[in-house]
């Protein structure tokens, strides 16, 4: 980065980019005509791929690295605007909230194998633990719902700790098998054992906070009514914003450094005094907690949990989101989540051919863009780091 850009970084390209993304999101959720959807999707992918290479991209990067705070607020504002624009459109809001919550779960996975290198092929299982916790607690106890969400996270973390020992002792493919086995085991168990509704699954009551019921539409004037999904979308947005802040501070600290050290070279890390086990446990648990919270919120939004929603295949989709986005890059993960979750919904023509095309798409990305859509950049401990 040239010194000049460092002294007074121009903010407008970054704001412009945020605006553009917001507009795109709006259009993408609005358009119905299949060719328009396809065009937008292709455009998005190309834009993402080009972004890093253009000078605009560089400028945006510079701005974000030097003056993150105003830009972050800008982004939050833009997101809220998009949500507000759909205030009456149930389906769009549901999609938005879904993307945000899956994104939250995938951020958890990012901490796990993007930072600490602990592969987790049972993300959906921990997502499910959160969901089932919410189902049980919200139905059978009077626990206030914020605590229910927390409980979902805690329980996911706790159940994850069952896998900690095997994961610490094993490496690479051996570790992968542990989580794969758990993913299958978990789903089968839920199905076979009737205590938690068996294959039927369970109903989950809607969320209420401070006397506010998320499942009621919000009357506005005489006839206009805002979708009840608005509450969920806004709430998910806040959750996600919080998670992003956490991720950022985690990555830009000695913690992030330690996780990277452990991921890249366990032996060297140990030789320089890093407690490998401690960092792996921290990352794995933190990741599962995020997945659990996301799962709990998602369950309360959709109002139903069943084993069929938390299969190994679901976990794979989460893993592909994390890798497609760019391993270790939260923003990339969100972009990928939006692409992977919304595109099939919009492209109804392809119906039963969806998975075929999706898999093909992932293969292409892995072949020609192995680092993902938005690769992770060097760590910047502080705003404007390494630019003076």
């Amino acid at each position, binding site marked *: 980065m040239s010194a000049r850009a460092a002294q007074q970084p121009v903010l407008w390209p970054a704001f412009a980019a945020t605006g553009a993304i917001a507009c795109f999101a709006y259009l993408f959720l609005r358009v119905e005509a299949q060719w328009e959807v396809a065009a937008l999707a292709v455009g998005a992918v190309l834009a993402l791929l080009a972004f890093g290479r253009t000078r605009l991209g560089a400028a945006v990067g510079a701005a974000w690295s030097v003056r993150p705070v105003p830009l972050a607020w800008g982004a939050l504002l833009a997101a809220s605007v998009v949500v507000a624009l759909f205030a009456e459109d*149930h389906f769009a809001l549901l999609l938005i909230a879904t993307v945000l919550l899956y994104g939250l779960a995938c951020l958890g996975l990012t901490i796990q194998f993007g930072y600490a290198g602990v592969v987790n092929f049972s993300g959906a299982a921990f997502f499910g633990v959160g969901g089932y916790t919410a189902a049980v607690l919200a139905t059978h106890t009077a626990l206030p719902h914020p605590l229910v969400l927390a409980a979902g996270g805690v329980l996911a973390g706790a159940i994850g700790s069952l896998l900690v020992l095997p994961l610490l002792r094993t490496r690479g493919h051996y570790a992968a098998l542990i989580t794969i086995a758990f993913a299958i085991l978990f789903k089968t168990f839920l199905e076979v054992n009737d205590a938690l509704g068996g294959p039927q699954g369970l109903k989950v009551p809607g969320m209420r906070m401070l006397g506010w019921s998320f499942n009621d539409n919000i009357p506005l004037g005489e006839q206009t009514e805002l979708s009840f999904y608005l509450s969920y979308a806004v709430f998910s947005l806040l959750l996600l914003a919080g998670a992003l802040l956490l991720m950022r501070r985690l990555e830009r600290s000695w913690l992030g450094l330690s996780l990277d050290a452990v991921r890249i070279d366990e032996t060297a890390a140990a030789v320089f005094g890093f407690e490998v086990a401690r960092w792996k446990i921290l990352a794995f648990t933190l990741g599962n907690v995020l997945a659990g919270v996301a799962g709990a919120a998602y369950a309360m939004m959709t109002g139903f949990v069943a084993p069929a929603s938390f299969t190994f295949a679901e976990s794979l989709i989460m893993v592909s989101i994390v890798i497609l986005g760019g391993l270790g890059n939260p923003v990339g993960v969100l972009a990928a989540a939006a692409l992977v979750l919304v595109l099939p919904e919009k492209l109804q023509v392809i119906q039963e051919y969806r998975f075929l095309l999706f898999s093909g798409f992932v293969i292409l990305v892995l072949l020609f863009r192995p680092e993902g859509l938005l690769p992770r950049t060097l760590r910047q401990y502080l705003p404007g780091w390494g630019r003076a």
Partner: protein
Amino acid sequence: MLPRPLRAALCCALLLAAGAVGAKEAVKLVFIGPLTGGVSANGLGGRNAADLAVRLRNADAKARYRYELVALDDECKPNIGVQVATKASSDRSIVAGVTHYCSTVAMATVDVYHRFGLPVVVWGAVLPDITYAHDYAEVHRVNGTMINQNETAARFMTGLKYQRWAVIHDTTDYGKGHNKYFSEYLAKNGGRIVGTFGVTADQQDFSAELTKIKDLKPEVVYFGGITPLGVRIRTQMDKLGVKAVFQGTSGIVSDAYIEGLGPLAEGSLAFREGAPIEKLPGGKLFLEQYNAQKYNDPPEAYGAFAFAAANLVMDAIEKVGPDRKKVRSELNRTRDYQSVVGTITFDDRRQNAVPLITKFVVQDGRWIVWEDSEYANGKRKLIQP
């Protein structure tokens, strides 16, 4: 994304419709079912059947509206189901729906339909709770529940003097539900269950379970599940020398079952709600038309129900116009409606109350209605107790 001949057919149909009566008002219906994943065969069959109904209606000059079918995939996953149900319900241009093969998904989505006031007719999900667990005016069902099915099955089989059953069911809602109700009614009718075996829906090998069963020496093996598993289990029964009558549920009343087993299918029994399609004039037409369209996949056990449901909905619309509330109350009023699956009359919970259950047996590679089979008139014999 439809096969070419079908696309051609579609064009013709549209041309006809357009030519016959200038521009009719377009009305949208939604079909929801599993188009991907393990049970997609049934979902695709249902989708095609509903599509066929719409096609025929559009080709009919007397129809007041031109219908468009929006087909959505619920992947047999409740969360996806809620998603697509919301999409359909919140789209005001969609007037009514023909929805769900998987009971879990139906259970998850009924609240959505109720909240958004979208009248739907369930075409395949058999769990009683879908209609009976709550009183939602929007939710109707043309197919019977597993209750009716198993009541008849139990009475009929004990009537044939069988006494010892071994039960295999898959651990999906479908299999588990069937196990529950069949066991209940069998007990009432004095049959005995010597062993019950839950198996996962994607299981390939059943030798361990069947070896156990062989040791229990049942006269009948009751299977609660759908075709793929049924085929595997029946085949492996033969491998391990388990000599017993194979009694299935509506889930195996499909060509795929017979194609999958060849001669081994002979003598398999199964029960399905509704009248025997082949015997109703409408049913014959349905099958002919279906084959004429050259769809990729057969209608499967519940295609006819999707067809009937689609027609039921369209008739309601023809009568009261494309208005959700009106259509809903019209559907609620359904009495003695003649369909390809027989008379449809909704009870106070909008469940098709016509308790007609057809018994099927495989004879010479075809599902034959029991009464006209050579087994009924004694020409052939099932494995005797």
